């Protein structure tokens, strides 16, 4: 029997149908407590999008890629930049202040084509899990929810294609099973922290 908490935290490799059902039958324990409100969720998403947009800006500038990979990662950069703009506009339209872009350091990520693609792959899958983990906190904000979901789906596309470009196994590489796995805010911060120069309240 797979422990439900493991399942939610994404450490369970496979979700049998019966467990999937069990997953549906119980509240997602962490979600409501992770965020203080819609703006908090949006600023969390914005920080991740800043991180991704800057990552691709630097990576594409390093000129490591050719052909299809180059085209795809340029498109992905534009997507992330579009997400940043949309999230900032939305936070502002809600009368709140968008967080500033974090100071980042991607270390040796741009040393080679392989390290660039591998780091991108990690970021995208982290982004997918982060959005999914935050989704229940937007349950009552229907417009925001639809919009956040529309970004989440595109992150999933990025993640899959980076798996293809990295020539990863289909299952467990390009795909992570029949269901995306959510991640808690704490888990996302931990995964992102090596790239953040200062401690963030992500």
């Amino acid at each position, binding site marked *: 029997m797979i422990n439900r908490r493991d399942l939610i935290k994404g450490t369970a490799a496979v979700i049998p149908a019966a467990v999937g059902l069990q997953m549906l039958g119980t509240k997602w324990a962490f979600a409501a407590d992770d965020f203080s409100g819609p703006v908090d969720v949006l600023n969390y998403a914005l920080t991740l999008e800043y991180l991704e947009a800057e990552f691709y800006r630097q990576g594409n500038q390093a000129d490591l890629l050719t052909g299809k990979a180059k085209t795809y990662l340029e498109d992905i950069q534009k997507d992330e930049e579009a997400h940043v703009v949309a999230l900032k506009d939305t936070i502002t339209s809600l009368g709140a202040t968008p967080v500033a872009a974090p100071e980042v350091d991607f270390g040796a990520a741009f040393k080679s084509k392989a390290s660039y693609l591998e780091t991108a792959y990690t970021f995208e899958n982290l982004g997918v899990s982060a959005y999914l983990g935050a989704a229940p906190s937007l349950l009552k904000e229907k*417009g925001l929810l639809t919009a956040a979901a*529309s970004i989440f789906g595109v992150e999933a596309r990025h993640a899959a294609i980076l798996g293809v470009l990295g020539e990863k196994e289909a299952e467990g590489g390009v795909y992570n099973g029949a269901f995306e796995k959510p991640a808690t805010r704490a888990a996302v911060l931990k995964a992102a922290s090596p790239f953040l120069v200062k401690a963030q309240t992500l």
Partner: protein
Amino acid sequence: MTHLAHLHCPSQRDPCMNHEKLPPTPVDQSDPARHVFGGQPVLTFGDEGQRRKFLRAAAVVGFGSTLVALSQRDKFALADATADDLEILNYALTLEYLEADFYTQGLDGGVLDGRDLELVTPIRDHEQEHVTVLTDTVKSLGGKPAAKPKFTYPDGTFDDKKTFLTTASTFEELGVTAYHGQVARINDGDILAAAASIAGVESRHAAVVADLLGGNPFPSSFEKNKSMKAVLKAAGPFIES
């Protein structure tokens, strides 16, 4: 109230970057046939026969019947689930039945090999898992799962790789817009999380199939959405009974 609700980019890649104010594009409740799949109408409703097929698809999903099911449901069922949620689950189930059936037939046809086969085989498995989980979930809510319809595909759909994958791409993009069209209608947080976890996987499928076809895996910076009516209209011709 929200700006973000309207941020869907109207066209291919750049508009979101070029507009201070993003154009309003609410959930599309209008005639679907014109805009399904990037403005290339694959299915239009020109005649009475097609309209009937849509109505049949609607009946398969069980509009209305879920209300009865819900009134009889166990009080232990999810607290916030509503008749809408059951209807959405049966709607999703019907689409997953279609996808599972389609990939099973397609892979049985044996037109894929190598990396193509490796990447498409898990898609079939995922769709089958979605069917199982959605069926179980409807039952757990005290509802009646939609029965598996009998599907029909145009002649030659499974005869070669290109036709098979082109049809697959159609279904995947349709599935993505279907899930995204329901996000705002779901009332229960757990059902939302589950539906979203499936939607993300459908996005992966859509991207991979587009790539296998040499197409664009990232047609927009934001996933688009379609109303239930629009999606059933598009799926109707594949549902025989």
